[in-house]
Structures are given as C-alpha cells and as structure tokens.
C-alpha cells in the first residue's frame, strides 16, 4: 500500500461526499424555492404527461438546442452521448461484469474519441465564434480543458499504455465497502493517477459550477410547467399569505 494510494482513497471519499452532498444541497434549494407564476415557454404541454415527454425530448435529444444551432447541437450531443457510453463502460469498476457491460465495452472504448472530438468542437467555438468568445469566462475554457484532459488520459490507458484495471477495480471496490483501498492500492502509473486526479477535481467542482445544469434543467419552470393556468389555480405560499392577510405588499405582512 503506497502513500499515494491512501491519498487517492481519501481524495475520492471526499470528492464523492462533496459531489453528492453539494448536489443534494443545491437540488433541495431548487425544490424548496417557490415558482410563484406559471411561466412555461409556450406552446407548452397541457398535461403532466406532456411535460414529461417535453422534458425527455430536451434531456435526451436537446430539442431546443437543435432548433437553435445545428453545429453546436452536433458537438453537444456527440459529447454527451459519448460521455454516457464512457460512464456505462466505467461502471465495471463498481459493479460485477454482466452481459450488458460486456456488450457495451467496445462502444465505451471508442466513445472516448467522439467525446474528445465533441469537446474539441465546443472549445473551438469559444475561440472561433466572436459571440461565444465574448461570453466565455476563464472557467468556461478550463472546464473544457479539464474534460478533454480526462478524456485524453483515459484514451491513453485504453490505446497506448495499459494499466492494471483489475488492481484499479480492487481499489475502488475497497473504497466502496470501506475496505481500505484494496489489498494493493492503485497501480503506480502516472497516467492513471492523472486521470483519477482530474476526475476527482471534476466531482468536487460539480456542485459549485455550471455543471449543475444537469440536475438544474429538471427545475426549469419554462420547461417543466403544465400550461393550464386557466383551468387550475397556481399559487405560491408567500403569495397566498398576502391574500390571507388582505395585504398588498410583502413588507406589510405579519410574520
């Protein structure tokens, strides 16, 4: 067991805690913040089932983005779909191999390339399109750099210098069961260490960055509301309090 392995073990426990805890805090904030008015972007579905379908189309096919900009859509969908394939492939490190995972391995393997390609396209836009260049902060560039570095270091391990994946699996298996980092810890390959360090960094910044768009979209009132304001009265708690107390202004309310 090396010192580095212990450090990485602690790092991944911390990163997981921050990722899960941070997302839970943010999602609770979105959940608890009222939406006082009906503001779906119309035409909008008139039933809850319709809303589920609308959200599905947005989340899976990026429908609005497709309408907006075909090039951007292509890079975005390429990256996100590839990321899913890569993530599915990576689940082998946390669960026992099964037929589905065996079947998915080659897809996940080559999706690494399309993922990096998509990211490269997205990054190129930040330099080449003057409008996108203007709105990009340093963090927007770094986020893409981080993802590309994760992708490239991952590809290196698949196609250039193989690492002992069984040992990596044992390490994460140990972490999952609090079994103290496996018997042997992590392989001492620099690439796997870089790859894992960057992944941990990504997990840590997830809840404090724009990556919150992933859970956030489900809370977007313009996309998740049913268009039925005439049929069903929609009112938030704080607005109802104005009515109950017969007041016009919030600062007149008795607490």
């Amino acid at each position, binding site marked *: 067991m090396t010192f580095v392995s212990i450090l990485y073990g602690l790092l991944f426990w911390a990163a997981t805690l921050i990722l899960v805890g941070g997302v839970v805090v*943010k999602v609770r904030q979105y959940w608890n913040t009222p939406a006082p008015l009906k503001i779906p972007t119309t035409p909008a579905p008139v039933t809850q089932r319709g809303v589920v379908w609308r959200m599905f189309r947005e989340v899976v096919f990026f429908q609005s983005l497709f309408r907006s900009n075909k090039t951007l859509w292509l890079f975005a969908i390429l990256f996100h779909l590839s990321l899913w394939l890569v993530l599915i492939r990576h689940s082998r490190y946390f669960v026992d191999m099964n037929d589905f995972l065996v079947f998915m391995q080659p897809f996940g393997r080559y999706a690494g390339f399309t993922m990096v390609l998509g990211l490269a396209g997205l990054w190129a836009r930040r330099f080449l399109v003057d409008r996108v260049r203007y*709105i990009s902060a340093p963090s927007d560039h*770094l986020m893409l750099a981080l993802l590309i570095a994760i992708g490239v270091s991952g590809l290196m391990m698949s196609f250039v210098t193989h690492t002992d994946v069984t040992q990596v699996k044992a390490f994460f298996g140990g972490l999952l069961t609090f079994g103290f980092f496996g018997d042997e810890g992590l392989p001492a390959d620099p690439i796997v260490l870089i790859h894992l360090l960057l992944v941990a960094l990504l997990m840590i910044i997830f809840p404090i960055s*724009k990556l919150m768009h992933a859970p956030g979209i489900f809370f977007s009132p313009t996309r998740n509301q049913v268009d039925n304001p005439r049929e069903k009265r929609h009112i938030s708690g704080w607005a109802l309090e104005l009515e109950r107390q017969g007041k016009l202004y919030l600062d007149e309310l008795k607490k």
Partner: protein
Amino acid sequence: MADYEVPTLTGEGYCEVPAVREDVMKGKGPFIAKPAFQEAMHFPSDFAEIGELVPNWKERALDKMADLKGRYRSLQVFLDICVKCGACTDKCHYFIGTSDAKNMPVARQDLLRKVYRRYFTFAGKYFPKLVGATDLTEDVLKDWYNYYHQCSQCRRCSVFCPYGIDTAEISMAAREILDHVGYGQKYCNEILGKVYKIGNNLGLPGPALFDTVEGLEEDVEDDTGIKVRFPLDEDGAEVLLVTPSADFFAEPHIDGLIGYAKVFHETGVTWTLSTVASEAGNFGMFIGSYETMRRVSLRVREAAIKHKVKRIVFGECGHAWRVAYSFLNTLAGPFDFLDQRYPIPQHILEFTWGHLQAGTLKIDKTENDDKVLTFHDSCNVARGSRMGDAPGGQFEIPRHVIRAVCNNFVDMPADTIHDATFCCGGGGGLLTDDLMEIRVKGAQPRAEALKHVTTHNGVTHMAAICAICKSQFTKVLPYYGFTMDQIVSVHQLVSNAIILQRQVSVQARPDEEEDEDDDA
C-alpha cells in the same frame, strides 16, 4: 430623421448576424422616475433627486437579490445553470439590430449573474476572476439600468435555450432590484401610478371615457346606420371587456374596439367596459413586481364583481394577455363567481372565432379585398400564453379569424412567426420616446420579414393583436420606408367585413329605441 444609423433592409427576409461590437448602445438608459413616483409604487423613495441612489444602496440591492432568488425558482435556477453555450447569442432582435455585445441574451443575463456569483457563490467569492464575477458598483448598476431597459422580455431567447433560461425573468428581477435602490424607470412607474389613481395607462378619467364611447356610437351609426352600443359601467352585462386604453383613441387600435363592439352587437351577448378596469395592460410585469402586478390585476376582479358580470374577455393586447391568461387566476382568483362554462379569462379572438365557427356572424370578405394581409405574432401571446384548447392555438386562432374575414393572407418567413416571432421592438416597458434608438433598431428583424412579403407576395398590411405592437409599428416602421396605416388591428378587419344584421342592440337604451323608431 435620427442621429444614429437606421439599419437598411435587404428584402431577403432575414438579417445577417452582426459581428459583435462593444458599447454601441452604452448610455444612460431611459428617464429615471422621481421619488414621488417611486413612493406611489411602494418602492423606496429616500433619495433626493433623479439619478441618486438610496443610502446603503449596495446592501439593499444585494438584500433584494437574495429576497428575489429565494422567492423565484426561475431566477435561482437560471442564474446557476447557464453553461454559456451561446445558443441564444444570435436570437435577440436588439442584438441583431444593434450588434452591442451586451444585447446578447446571455451577456445581458451575465450583468446580473456576475454580481450573483460574486456575493452568493463559492467560486465567485474566492475565485472571482476565474468565473467572471464582479463587485456591485455604481457603474454596474448604471449598466444594469441601461441594458435591462434594452430587453423587451419577449422570451425569444428562452425558446432556443437548451434549459429554457428566460432572460425576461432576469430582466424583471434586475428592474425590481433597481426599483429598490432609486433607479426606477419613469415611463413604467408613472404609468402604473396613473392606473392606481385613474384606472388606465393613459390617465383617461371616467368622464372622458363616457365621451369617447358616446362619440364611437355616433361614428358607427353614421357609418352603418345602426346604433351599435359601447356600454360603459353597465351593471348586469354578461361580459366585462377589459381592453388596452389605447383602444379608446389611438389608430389603428380604435378600429379594433369598433370591431369588438360589432361582434358583441351581432351575437347579442351583453357586455360592458369599465372605468375601474379601463386598462388591460399590466406594466407590473415589466418591472418584475408581483405585488404591483397583483394590485393592478385586482382591479379586474373588482370591476367584475361590481358590474355583476358572468364572464371576462380581454381585448387585443399582448403582454396583457400573458398576464391575463397565465397569471390572472393566480393574482386575482379564484373566479368562482363567474360562469365556469367559459374560459376565465377569454380572449376576444377566442370569442369571435367561436361565433365565426357557429355562423352567428355574417361576413363579406370582399370588404377587405383592397388588402393583402400578413400577421405579426405578438411575443408575449406567442411564447407566454395560449388561446383555445390546444397548444399553439395562439397562432391558429388569429389566423383563422383573419382568413375568415379576408381573402388574401400570406405568412412571413417561418423563422419569424409563431414561437420564433420577433418582438416589435417596443415591448416590456420600452415604448417610450426616450428609447427611440433601441426601438428603431430592435424593429429591424420584423421590418426585414415584412419587407420580404411586401416585395414577393404583394402584402399591403400587417395585422397585430397588441396595443404595444400597433403603437410601436406605426411609429417605427416609417423609418424603414413603410407607412403608418399599413398596421391594422385584427378586429379592424372583422369590423370591415361584418354585415350587421341586428337592427337594434340588445342593450339599446329605452330613449334611444324611441329615437330609432322616430328615425325609421
């Protein structure tokens, strides 16, 4: 005509996306409201002069931001989840017309988002440069004031955003914060004061309204020989009609009002206007204030109760219809005292279309044969409301009505209509003379689309269903070589084509009936 360059039209139907330029539209923004207007609006007024900020403005602005993001999920979520993909950057008519970087929707949102990040997020507190967070300074507030009054809250960006981020929600929040530190907008807040005091945006008092409707009755009688009533404050009518006050005197709005009156006359449905609710528009939405919007909406409830009506119908007005359709039930409901068999509220076009389908109205379409029509989808009707039972009814019903009363109708290019429609350039509290430059430039995409159909399809007139659109276009389209009278109300077309069958109004006053007899 102007000390700035008016864009030239190509007739291609679309505008090229301009190269980004900075600070083209930098400026002081519209006139600021004086303390008295702010006080009437229940906003802080502890500043001595126009342009001054209230004491502790920074703390109070941040407090207001915290308050708003705690009460509006839209604001909290939208501030967090933008990934700066740029999908919205070429969608705003003000960006297309001005090329000013801060008129790109995401850049406009970022004015507020940078401050939000600085004070409310971990990354912005500790790594402000990295995430583009900025301190709240007086200059930042001035930039807000200027650029949040170059947004008409039309929601076009929201349609194209992969997360549905609606810049209108951010603009509204920014304006509400500004209202709490001494930077209220004179145009909106003065008008809202008139609504509270007098009952409508234009400040037309009751007696003036009575004169106006009487004059209209005489005009229509001269024109048609029939005494079509324009009832005002008549208790017990079935329908309360709430319409923008521009309908009472401005062209082409008033021709629309005449159209509503003829439709009611023919259907025999009794109706009344109200001096209490003599305004459909609700500028409370523009300034993002729920409390203001609710106070304005409660007049409609009050009028409905006072006149003992059974239904509420709204006239042609874009933002008004969004507030009415989407918010009225929330703000001033529940309307359990009204007839539940009809939508509450109902749009005048839903009413008219229903009667056209039922065959109640006799129409001679050839009366509009001197025109080839196109239709401008008003932004807030298109993207913030609905008509009829099915999604998209807000696009179909106005076109059904136009086609039912006109022989010649052509749509503008597909990416400029329906939910991709371009705002007229004057919505959301921008319809004021101190904002002429942005109004003219913001109208470019619509003017371009209109030019396309006038050149290729012989279109002569554009019909609209919003008081702001009508006012904006009559003023601004002449800059692009069109004439004022090319803008018409949809109900003006109905008015032209309707053949009045009913000789005596069901609401005829007793003495008038005698008059009628005498005349006969």
